[in-house]
């Protein structure tokens, strides 16, 4: 499901944005090794302070699984200000009906490699459809997108091949970056939909999104410490480990440790700890 968060509704979706900034830190700082500023595990740059629009993919649990950022090309945007190497000293394109998209990413930890709804491929295509349809409804005819060669191949494979490239490919971190052009035509959108087998409305209504996220928060703050005994040293240790874990695989390791060591816990308490460790943290 696709949610658009911008300057008008961002106060309602702070947690979603926070998840997205963490995802971006893992992808752009970690996997791609770009020279991005990461603070407290979140990648946020000056363009995030310019009220961009974020097109965000959520899974059924309300977790951020994909995201991209859009800015107008009439004002400050990345190709004009920081990706000028790609433009090779040339003035950037400026047009009322051209948007720039940057920071396209998907959560390869949370998603699977297979087909189906929780796959990288599905989330990528859904995000492309969402971005193209959002731009199209805003009267935008083309998108210039800054991507790496892997993403370029993904676009080609997904029936969404760029119709051209602008400037040149420049080295950036562990990969390189280039600027590609995509039209926001019905033809392109249908082609991606057909490739991914996505037919219905991809957007989640604001109210539905808020309800989904609220239910996520309420499970998060369930009274996990149900027996109300003081937290034991072992539990405290688990919580510290969970707090210190940055990736899903690290978290999975902690869960395995809980399963292996917490023999003295009641089944109920063990389940609670496994299901929503944050609730424990909250109470600790």
């Amino acid at each position, binding site marked *: 499901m696709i949610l658009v968060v911008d300057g008008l509704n961002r106060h309602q979706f702070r947690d979603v944005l926070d998840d997205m900034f963490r995802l971006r830190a893992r992808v752009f700082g970690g996997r791609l090794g770009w020279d991005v500023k990461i603070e407290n595990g979140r990648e946020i740059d000056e363009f995030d302070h310019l009220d961009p629009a974020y097109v965000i993919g959520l899974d059924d649990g309300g977790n951020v699984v994909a995201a991209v950022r*859009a800015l107008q090309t009439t004002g*400050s945007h990345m190709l004009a200000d920081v990706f000028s190497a790609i433009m090779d000293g040339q003035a950037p394109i400026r*047009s009322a009906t051209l948007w720039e998209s940057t920071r396209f990413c998907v959560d390869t930890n949370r998603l699977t490699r297979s087909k189906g709804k929780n796959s990288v491929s599905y989330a990528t295509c859904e995000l492309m459809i969402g971005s193209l349809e959002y731009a199209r409804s805003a009267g935008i005819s083309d998108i210039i997108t800054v991507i790496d060669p892997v993403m370029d191949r993904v676009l080609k494979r997904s029936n969404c091949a760029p119709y051209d490239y602008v400037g040149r490919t420049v080295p950036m971190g562990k990969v390189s970056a280039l600027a590609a052009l995509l039209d926001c035509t019905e033809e392109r959108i249908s082609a991606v939909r057909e490739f991914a087998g996505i037919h219905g409305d991809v957007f989640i209504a604001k109210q539905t999104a808020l309800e989904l996220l609220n239910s996520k928060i309420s499970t998060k703050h369930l009274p996990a410490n149900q027996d109300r005994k003081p937290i034991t040293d072992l539990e405290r240790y688990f919580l510290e480990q969970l707090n210190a874990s940055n990736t899903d695989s690290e978290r999975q390791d902690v869960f395995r440790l809980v399963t292996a060591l917490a023999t003295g816990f009641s089944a109920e308490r063990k389940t609670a700890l496994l299901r929503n460790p944050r609730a424990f943290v909250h109470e600790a």
Partner: protein
Amino acid sequence: MEIVDLSTLPDEDAQYDEFLKQVCEKYEMDHAAYAGINPAAGSIHGHVTYSDEWKVHYQEHGLHLIDPTLHRAQRSIAPVDWSRLERGKDFQRVFSDAHDFGIPDQGVTIPVRGPYGDIGLLSATRNCSPEEWKKLIGNVITDLQSLAVHIHDNVMSSDTVSRMLYQPSLSNRELEILQWSAAGKSQQDIGDILSISHRTVEVHLRSARRKLNALTTPQAVGRAIGIGLIYPG
């Protein structure tokens, strides 16, 4: 396409009002309004097609200080349909007053962000059924986007400081394409000559027109020749 072009209109303030009137006629709107904020010159510009009574009321009651079509809409990059604005205290205040002056709460505001932190807001409104409105907006939104940037760029370059900042900076590709246009080549021809898609040619031409503040390619060619960026065909 019939063009609503600022450069063909009489001078200064009157031309913006006339421009907005023509936008209304061409795109079947009841009213249109433009507001621009230029931090470089420290100025705020406003032009509307609303009645003088509403203008006076709006100013006397300081509605510009709370008007959500100005303050909220500028935080979006996409056109903001007024149905998206929260029905808070400020909205109620502005639109209950507006209602008394015959202005409906069905409208759209197109935010424009300029290169120097300047912001423009083109609003259009029409009293009709929601279905009709949705259909109309779908048909005209791309044109309105271009016209919003057109009036904004014109207003922003109307004072000397900003005119100096607004020196057009065209890429070699844009100049090359304009030069071929000056030689009378079509977009398709130019695409073939340069071995790029005609859609890429179109994107560069749109950008060149935007930077030269021109709505048509012949106009852009004329201006580029005028300031010595390209040679006469």
